[in-house]
């Protein structure tokens, strides 16, 4: 069948003449006389690739040359059970279950045979820890669960209004002694101890050993009036300059950061935490100030419970219907504040810091990736993967953000580029054209890396993985150099829905198809967005549509904007300070290391019921 000549138009005919000829070389339509075959030039630059982190880590993970397009061993790996120690454990447990309870459970014989291809182990970025893929599943990793639990069980309560009501309406005197007595009582009530009634069943304190409260203030004199045991000392937890900025931001007000026991999150939900914090605080006031049952107590109850209470998350709209403090209702800006990876770094804007010292710049970029790890885990994996989809979590969609040193390599290469060519600049102008060209550059580069490393394509085996990477890195580089999170969020959809899509003609998975279009609910639009700041939005913003792999990018934009401006916090100094607390079970400074500890089964979570199990008295 001969090819039909385009009947309409001259341009079509000239196309025919020019294009459909075959030769030994592939013609490239740059300047006609300037064609070249990139395959013939690869010797010039491919050796350089072997110096990169990405090459080394892929080599380590795949124990093979990552630049080889053909895997001769595929189908001959002998199944997943032979490849993974965790799966062997699962199979043994499956048999044990079937024997002991009579109903079969886990059974590797049903469904598709796994492990026909290489079941690669996971290298946690920024560490040397290599773990099994199954260890990064949310259900198997207590550190991941504890991270979200720690966020959910935190409520910040302002003490200024209750103190005022106590003074003016109830006529009580507020003294350092009374405030310390209140704090001591609060530690008791938060853990489930009774203070008011004389005949009460209480909670075993061993079960709620992670419940505590700490005062937080920006005023050093006020801070000194409290017992050091329950002071959240900003000076200790942050770089001195950051601490100064934070204290200035918090001001002379007095707050108490309450942590409900993890067990409460496990029994109930975020809404119960909000009320738990409120009642524990009120009871502590009642007991420590000896309040009586007069009419004013109702006014006081409101002041102590709700007037100045700051929940981490808002209540969600009907179809998603969750109470406060659940991951879906937490704004992006709060998630950016929850990550405190930058707490010990100097608060210097990214570009000057990088141009002065490349390593300092890389540390800042590392912090951005730590925020990405928190966001991907909490939003993609926890919220969308468990709450919204009802599945067993989107393990691979979130783990690609913090495994394999892939994103690290991308941002480090960019840091080197900036360090070479951007000397003499302090902040790039936050103009669309500037941002667009940087995103294009970064995305074209990342696509090229994927093409050069077939092992990387196999590692990020789904379109959703690559889309996550593209959506996070390119725009984040714009945000961190311009300090403008809005510009970055405009570019997220541009990077995915236009640059990646037109280059490869493929984007994410089917549920995500909608967001790979340039459409109103998915991409940013100036007229709508100039009123809806990205920091204050979240997954429950009604005019936005979110599916997995797009949410983490927004948090990363907020965090990168903060680093780009050299700010000490993104949205709230209180939230930033609250999550730099060294008494938290999960360390929000090094989430990737914590995930690794969880995968290695070295992480000790809270909220366990071991104390009340048989024979554990």
């Amino acid at each position, binding site marked *: 069948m001969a090819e039909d000549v385009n009947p309409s138009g001259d*341009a079509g005919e*000239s*196309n025919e003449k*020019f294009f459909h000829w075959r030769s030994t070389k592939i013609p490239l*339509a*740059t*300047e*006609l006389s*300037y*064609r*070249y075959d*990139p395959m013939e*030039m690869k010797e*010039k*630059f491919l050796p*350089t690739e072997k*110096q*990169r982190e990405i090459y080394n880590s892929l080599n380590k993970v795949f124990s093979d040359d990552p630049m080889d397009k053909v895997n001769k061993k595929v189908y001959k790996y002998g199944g997943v059970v032979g490849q993974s120690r965790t799966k062997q454990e699962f199979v043994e447990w499956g048999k044990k279950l079937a024997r002991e309870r009579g109903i079969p459970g886990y059974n590797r014989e049903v469904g598709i045979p796994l492990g026909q291809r290489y079941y690669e182990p996971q290298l946690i970025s920024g560490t040397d820890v290599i773990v099994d893929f199954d260890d990064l599943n949310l259900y198997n990793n207590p550190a991941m669960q504890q991270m979200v639990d720690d966020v959910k069980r935190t409520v910040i309560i302002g003490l200024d209004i209750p103190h005022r009501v106590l003074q003016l309406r109830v006529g009580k005197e507020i003294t350092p002694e009374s405030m310390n007595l209140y704090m001591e009582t609060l530690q008791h009530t938060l853990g489930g101890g009774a203070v008011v009634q004389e005949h009460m069943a209480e909670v075993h304190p061993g079960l709620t050993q992670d419940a505590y409260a700490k005062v937080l203030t920006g005023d050093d004199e006020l801070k000194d009036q409290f017992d050091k045991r329950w002071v959240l000392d900003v000076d200790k937890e942050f770089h001195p300059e950051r601490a100064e*900025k934070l204290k*200035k*931001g918090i*001001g002379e007000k007095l707050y108490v950061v309450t942590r409900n026991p993890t067990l409460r999150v496990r029994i109930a939900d975020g809404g119960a935490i909000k009320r738990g914090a409120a009642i524990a605080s009120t009871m502590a006031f009642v007991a420590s100030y000896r309040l009586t049952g007069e009419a004013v107590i109702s006014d006081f109850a409101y002041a102590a419970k709700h007037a100045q209470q700051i929940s981490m998350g808002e209540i969600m709209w009907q179809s998603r219907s969750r109470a406060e403090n659940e991951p879906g209702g937490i704004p992006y800006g709060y998630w950016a504040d929850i990550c405190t990876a930058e707490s010990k770094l100097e608060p210097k*804007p990214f570009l*000057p810091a990088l141009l002065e010292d490349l390593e300092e710049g890389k540390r800042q970029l590392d912090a951005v990736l730590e925020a990405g790890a928190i966001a991907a885990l909490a939003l993609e994996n926890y919220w969308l993967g468990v709450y919204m989809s009802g599945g067993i979590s989107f393990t691979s969609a979130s783990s690609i953000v913090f495994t394999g040193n892939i994103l690290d390599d991308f941002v480090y*290469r*960019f840091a*080197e*580029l900036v*360090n*070479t*060519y*951007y000397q*003499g*600049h*302090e*902040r*790039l*102008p936050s*103009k669309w*054209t*500037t941002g667009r*060209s940087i995103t*294009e*550059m970064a995305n*074209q*580069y990342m696509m090229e890396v994927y093409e050069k490393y077939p092992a990387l394509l196999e590692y990020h085996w789904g379109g959703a993985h690559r889309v996550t990477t593209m959506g996070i890195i390119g725009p984040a580089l714009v945000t961190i150099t311009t*300090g403008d999170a809005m510009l970055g969020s405009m570019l997220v959809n541009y990077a995915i829905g236009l640059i990646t899509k037109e280059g490869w003609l493929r984007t994410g998975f089917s549920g995500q198809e909608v967001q790979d279009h340039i459409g109103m609910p998915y991409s940013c639009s100036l007229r709508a967005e100039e009123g809806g700041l990205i920091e204050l939005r979240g997954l429950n913003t009604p005019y936005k549509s979110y599916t997995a792999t797009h949410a983490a990018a927004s948090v990363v934009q907020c965090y990168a904007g903060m680093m*780009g*401006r*050299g*700010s*000490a*916090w993104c949205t*709230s*100094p209180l939230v930033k300070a609250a999550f730099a607390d060294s008494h938290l079970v999960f360390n929000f400074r090094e989430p990737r290391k914590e995930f690794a500890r969880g995968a290695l089964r070295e992480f000790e979570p809270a909220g366990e019921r071991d104390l009340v199990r048989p024979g554990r008295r």
Partner: protein
Amino acid sequence: MAREELGVIKPQLEEEHFKPKPPLPKDWYKNVDWINLKDREPDLYTLLFDFLINKMAPCPACVMTTAKFPARSILIETRHPERGIEYARMRISPSSVVRGAPEPGSMIEVDTVLRIDYYDLVRILLGEIDTVDPIEDGTATFIGNMTALLDLKDAIDLAIKGDLSAKLPRPLMWPDGHP
């Protein structure tokens, strides 16, 4: 909360970049030794051509280095207050200058389109500012292959300074010779 935490929108160092630069002298081209015809201000093509013939071609360091690059074609679009928009294509490896933009339907596609103010380009070629500065200041834009732009920057830097020390080492992501 304290409003200063939003950061400074235009840092002091950056203000220097945004400030209007002192104007070029009216007859600036008469004092430039590499411009051949000094009877009038050169148009874009003449400017680039003269730079190629009198600065790039005689510079051994420039010729040796650009020979390592893949073939490049960069469309430069300048705006001049009187002559308006002008186009010329700068080709590297082998080097040449072509007048005008590719004709529609000619099936020619350039590697990069660089849109820049005429006098910014003059300043670049005179060595007063860096090639990438106008892009980073947001006064010039580019679409396409940034590696080609870096090749152009290297060629210009080498031609102006004349020795190999003018060339910045390429970052690991795009070594010399990367398409």
